[in-house]
């Protein structure tokens, strides 16, 4: 699963920064049918967790009410340089992850 994380290139210590992620995923609702009339099973990314230097800073439980290629934006306090790790799982059990690094200047 392709994903894109956007962070500011650098932040001051203590600054509140915006973290954005988009994941390529159909977020299949389970209400649609194939051309032959066979229902397409529901398959959405149901859980996503964001960690910053190992500590959980944000998580989401999602359903079919979230649009395809889910986009999330949230905020966090930049307290140290380091790594953001995003992990998610969909209804079929497919897992995905994406990293991003942030540089914090004093």
């Amino acid at each position, binding site marked *: 699963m392709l994903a894109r994380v956007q962070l500011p290139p650098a932040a001051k210590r203590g600054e*509140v*920064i915006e973290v954005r992620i988009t994941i390529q995923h159909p*977020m299949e*609702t389970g*209400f*649609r*049918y194939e051309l032959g*009339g066979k229902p397409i099973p529901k398959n959405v990314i149901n859980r996503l967790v964001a960690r*910053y230097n190992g*500590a*959980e*800073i*944000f*998580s*989401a*439980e*999602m*359903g*079919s*009410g*979230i*649009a*395809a290629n*889910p*986009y*999330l*934006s*949230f*905020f*966090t*306090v930049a*307290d140290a340089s380091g790594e953001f790790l995003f992990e998610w799982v969909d209804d079929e059990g497919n897992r995905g992850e994406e990293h991003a690094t942030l540089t914090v200047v004093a």
Partner: protein
Amino acid sequence: MMATRARRRFISALAGLAAAPLLPGRQARGQEADVFASLMRQVTGGAGVAPGRVKVDTPRLADNGHSVPLSVRVDSPMTPADHVRSITLLSERNPRPVMATFYLGPKSGRAQVTTRVRLNGSQRVRAVAQLSDGSWWSGDAEVEVTESACLDAS
């Protein structure tokens, strides 16, 4: 005598007709209120929810319901003593009305989350937030959706 009675019947039938179109509307309104009330009970586990402190931002008019930008902001200092724990997005008309729940903490710095939602037609959406003191707050936005998300066979 007969003519008068017939006229009275006719007039009362007319009055009934005039009142009829109002009734489904009023019933629908009542049902919608119940939708949120029962959903919120489900989310909060029966705790009371006060309106306020939560602001939901969406475009007033969405061309289609497949992807509607939605931003929630909760008025909170986001300190360890006083912060937002969770935000749940509820839809009035979606077949699965609980759209998402987001979990925040004091390290969030700002209680604001933005995403894109699917909406099955014009409706109110509600965000319900739980603060660190256990209190629940809510805010609404009204979205006019020209073409609803295709939730049926299409």
